[in-house]
């Protein structure tokens, strides 16, 4: 297994963790009625900003853990850390799909806004599509690596 595939698994894992953590936190605050009133958007933005350092830490930890786990599973004491031109091309192709998904999500959120949904819903639609695009990017990368290109 190449270094890039290990990194993709790690990013996918941390992306899923972030997705679950963010929406778990949002639904918890929502049930407590914290998103009512003038402070709602400020709280939402703070929750999102808090997820950025959490996401960086989760990605770094999962990359280290996945490297160790795959090295043990493959019984490879000297794993490769090479990222080559094919890896970069696959990454670019997956990023393009991720961009399309995020773009579609953004348009959906604008449609929701046009039809009278709240800013809270629209903001979460944008964040949701961003996270979905990140997860899709990882899955597409894995599929391309598996198929050869």
């Amino acid at each position, binding site marked *: 297994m*190449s270094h890039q*595939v290990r990194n993709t698994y790690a990013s996918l894992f941390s992306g899923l963790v972030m997705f679950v953590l963010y929406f778990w936190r949002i639904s918890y605050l929502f049930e407590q009625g914290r998103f009512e009133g003038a402070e709602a958007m400020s709280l939402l933005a703070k929750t999102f900003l808090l997820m950025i350092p959490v996401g960086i830490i989760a990605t770094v930890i999962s990359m280290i853990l996945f490297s160790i786990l795959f090295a043990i599973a493959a019984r490879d004491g000297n794993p490769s850390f*090479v990222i080559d*031109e*094919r890896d970069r091309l696959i990454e670019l192709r997956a990023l393009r799909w991720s961009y399309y998904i995020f773009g579609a999500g953004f348009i959906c959120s604008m449609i929701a806004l046009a039809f009278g949904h709240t800013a809270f819903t629209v903001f979460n639609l944008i964040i949701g599509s961003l996270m979905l695009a990140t997860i899709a990017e990882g899955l597409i990368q894995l599929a391309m690596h598996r198929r*050869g290109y």
Partner: protein
Amino acid sequence: MGKTQISNTIRRLRFDADEMTQKQLAELVGVTRQTIVAIEKAKYAPSLELAFLIARTFDTPLEEVFTFNGD
């Protein structure tokens, strides 16, 4: 994903080069073993730079390693 229009003789060249492994070739040209596998199966067309590096590794002209099969 479909095959590329570029076929190659890397597998035979590796065999002739004292049965060089895919991993050894990958290390010599600075790519992953998976990329060598994809090139050998004609699932991935390498960059010109990588193609020259592979040809140089086997001390063979580029056109003897890669052949364009397109129209």
